[in-house]
């Protein structure tokens, strides 16, 4: 794959995830910029499709809550982190193993399950950590798929 095309793909993915992260914390921006707050109900509605938005489980910065829960914030932040690192390491996905994905997915599901059955209380640190790791690996899978697609296309 020509490195220019690969860089374009990586920059595009990084930019898209960055915009998504900004939208998650849009309430903080809206608090600072007049009139932007009218967008919050619409954004809340949009994010309600992908998250339960329980305010007790969301990240609070300067008394303002993120539009998704801590676990989802972790997932997107993990993806953003992987996108950022892939800007410098083109083939970051070569370290990827299916067992990592399965283990991280299992870790997240067990945490959700144990919290829901009341085995232990909700822990923000575990939530965000499980989200970051899984988000990181998920992004690498996505990036690998797109990378191979462009690579095969150019070979043809």
């Amino acid at each position, binding site marked *: 794959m020509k490195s220019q095309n690969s860089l374009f793909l990586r920059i595009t993915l990084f930019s898209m995830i960055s915009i998504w992260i900004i939208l998650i914390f849009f309430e903080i921006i*809206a*608090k600072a910029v*007049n*009139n932007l*707050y*009218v967008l*919050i*109900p*619409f954004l809340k*509605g*949009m994010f*309600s*499709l*992908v*998250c*339960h938005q*329980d305010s007790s489980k969301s990240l609070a910065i300067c008394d303002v809550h993120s539009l*998704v*829960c801590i*676990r*989802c914030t972790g*997932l997107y932040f993990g993806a953003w982190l992987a996108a950022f690192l892939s800007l410098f390491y083109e083939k970051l996905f070569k370290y990827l193993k*299916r067992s990592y*994905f399965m283990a991280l997915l299992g870790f997240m599901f067990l945490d*959700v399950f144990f919290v*829901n059955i009341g085995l232990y209380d909700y822990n923000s640190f575990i939530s965000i950590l499980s989200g970051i790791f899984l988000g990181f690996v*998920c992004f690498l*899978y*996505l990036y*690998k*798929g*797109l990378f*191979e*697609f462009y690579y095969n296309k150019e070979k043809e």
Partner: protein
Amino acid sequence: MKKYISTFVTGFGAGVFQIVPVAKSFACCLIIPFAAYFSLLLQQKANKDYSKITIKKASVFGFLTGLNAAIFSSLFEILITLITKTNDLIVSIPEINKMLSEFPIDETIRKEVSKILTGVVYDITHYGFSLIYSFSIVVNNFFINIIFGLIGGLIAMQILNKKNNEII
């Protein structure tokens, strides 16, 4: 069309999961990507075809799963609102109004937003249907579910290809 029946099944399941509150808190943003994964898995199992999944196939399955989930979840949401004449928006209206009054926005915009919200609340509580609310639900569902479906399809492609390679 029969080829894509698995997207219909998992899309329906995801649509239901997106509406049920308890289930929603379990799977959160992983509902649609998982549905896309299972649609590809079901298709492979049903046809006993474990050949390499192409990006085109993964994208089509992801897209259709997201599309079906969007259709079903929009339909369920509108139907439940029609029957119960209430929904999450009605419950959160006092909170939204409080926030609107607290934040520094132009008085004209505040009045305009408040007017729209009051209209939506009136329509839902009296008729169980609001065109603005339904429109926003449909647009949101289609936009988000299709994007997450595509992402899920692409991730599933990598996982299933790797798994099938290991088996072969």
